[in-house]
């Protein structure tokens, strides 16, 4: 009891002066007006907030195997193939996946003595991030077997794009003719691309 009384007395002395000097909050001088809600019309557009597609140019490398089909005068065999290409990635509209045009031009090496220049353009379904698909035909001109060669390659490209870069796989049919030779090949290649331009960031 004595201890309780001592504590109570102490608290009284400590708390009462403190309470007397506690600052009082100054009241607000004006009532807060009602807040209006400005509503958006339903069915609003969704365009500028959507991501921009990549629209630019860069470099693409492919490296793989050309399987000769044995059509015409060549027996079936496999050759190494390498491409170094300047590419465009021209996406149009807005969205995570858009229609695009993919122009490509560059140098192609096959086997041991094919040196071909090629250029072409094709449609694509282009993603800023994720899988892109393109179908790009290229006309070829160069040297094969030491003689003038002409041809056509049609490339189906599956590219996992991540803004500026991309990695993927290419399957292509290639027809090359020189002299009396007519060669059909299927190329299986790994590819990588780097692109600079608008749309690397959203």
């Amino acid at each position, binding site marked *: 009891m004595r201890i309780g009384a001592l504590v109570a007395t102490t608290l009284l002395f400590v708390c009462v002066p403190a309470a007397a000097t506690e600052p009082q909050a100054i009241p607000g001088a004006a009532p807060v007006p009602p807040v209006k809600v400005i*509503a958006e019309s339903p069915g609003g557009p969704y365009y500028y907030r959507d991501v921009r597609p990549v629209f630019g140019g860069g470099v693409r490398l492919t490296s793989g195997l050309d399987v000769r089909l044995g059509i015409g005068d060549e027996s079936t065999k496999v050759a190494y193939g390498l491409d170094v290409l300047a590419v465009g990635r021209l996406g149009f509209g807005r969205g995570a996946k858009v229609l695009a045009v993919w122009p490509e031009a560059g140098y192609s090496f096959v086997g041991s003595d094919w040196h071909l220049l090629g250029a072409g353009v094709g449609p694509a379904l282009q993603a800023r991030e994720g899988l892109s698909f393109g179908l790009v035909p290229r006309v070829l001109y160069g040297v094969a077997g030491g003689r003038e060669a002409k041809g056509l390659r049609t490339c189906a490209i599956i590219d996992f794009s991540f803004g500026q870069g991309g990695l993927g796989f290419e399957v292509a049919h290639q027809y090359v003719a020189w002299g009396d030779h007519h060669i059909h090949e299927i190329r299986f290649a790994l590819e990588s691309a780097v692109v600079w331009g608008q749309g690397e960031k959203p």
Partner: protein
Amino acid sequence: MNHPARVLPVIGVFCVEFLGCGPSSQQLLAGNHFREAACSITEGEGDAQEISVAITRALDPQLHVDVVADDTVMAAAPQAPPEVRGRVLFVRVRVVTNEIPVDHLGLSLDTAGDVPAHPMELDALAKLTGEQAPPSHTSTETHYIQNAVSGAISIFTLGLIDPAQRGPTTHVVPPLPLEWKLTAPNAYGLYSAFSGSGCEEHRGGPEDAPHVGMSCDATFMVERVGSGSLALDMGVEYQALRLSRTQEMRSVGDDSSWTCRLKTRLHVPLGPVGDLSKATSATFGPRFRAVRELDEAAGREVTR
């Protein structure tokens, strides 16, 4: 032969999906599509001036300013020394806005003009009351685990990858409220008498298309020197999140490139410091006034 009603949708789809034509600023503003409008400016296509004016008109900030009388200050903080009286004006500012269809709002209040004024903070109040501010603390953080991991990486890669070792980091920790209360009771008393400063966002509507408003409170200490004028500078920022049809909504803090920001400033002259109390009473009295209304009353062009 082709009927226009058949051709136009085809042209529209071609335009939007392939060429990339967006809606005009007028179309966006007519439907209060402020998120789209803000992003159209970021994309360099929208009319920034027109959009900024329209969104600010919808936001319609309501303002109240009052000068707290010396007697009220002294009554609220009776421990404050009498010398405080008459040295500064305590100018309270409160802003309330409508809720508009944006994803986030930012609002900042500051003073402008040719008189010394600054936000009411404990440091400034301690100077005013002649009290000593409590010292700040420092805390030191050592990065043992991070350095151990860095060392392990360096060893396992034979030094090929050698992350830098981090030395101890020192942080400055401001004094606690209780320390202010003990060390500078008069300053603390004055500070506590005014309701807290800061802004609060109020939002409603669906989570992916909210409408957002804001209310802000601030108190400024304006020195009673000279015959300069005081004005209020209000910074407003409208934010819209970029979404994608196939991607989840990303937060503002995630990546700033996923946020469209539109900034504007509102300037409200409050009058000469000598007559500030009378001027704010006459202008505001016991009610909030729309900033737009103040502009119109003063004959200022609303061009923000």
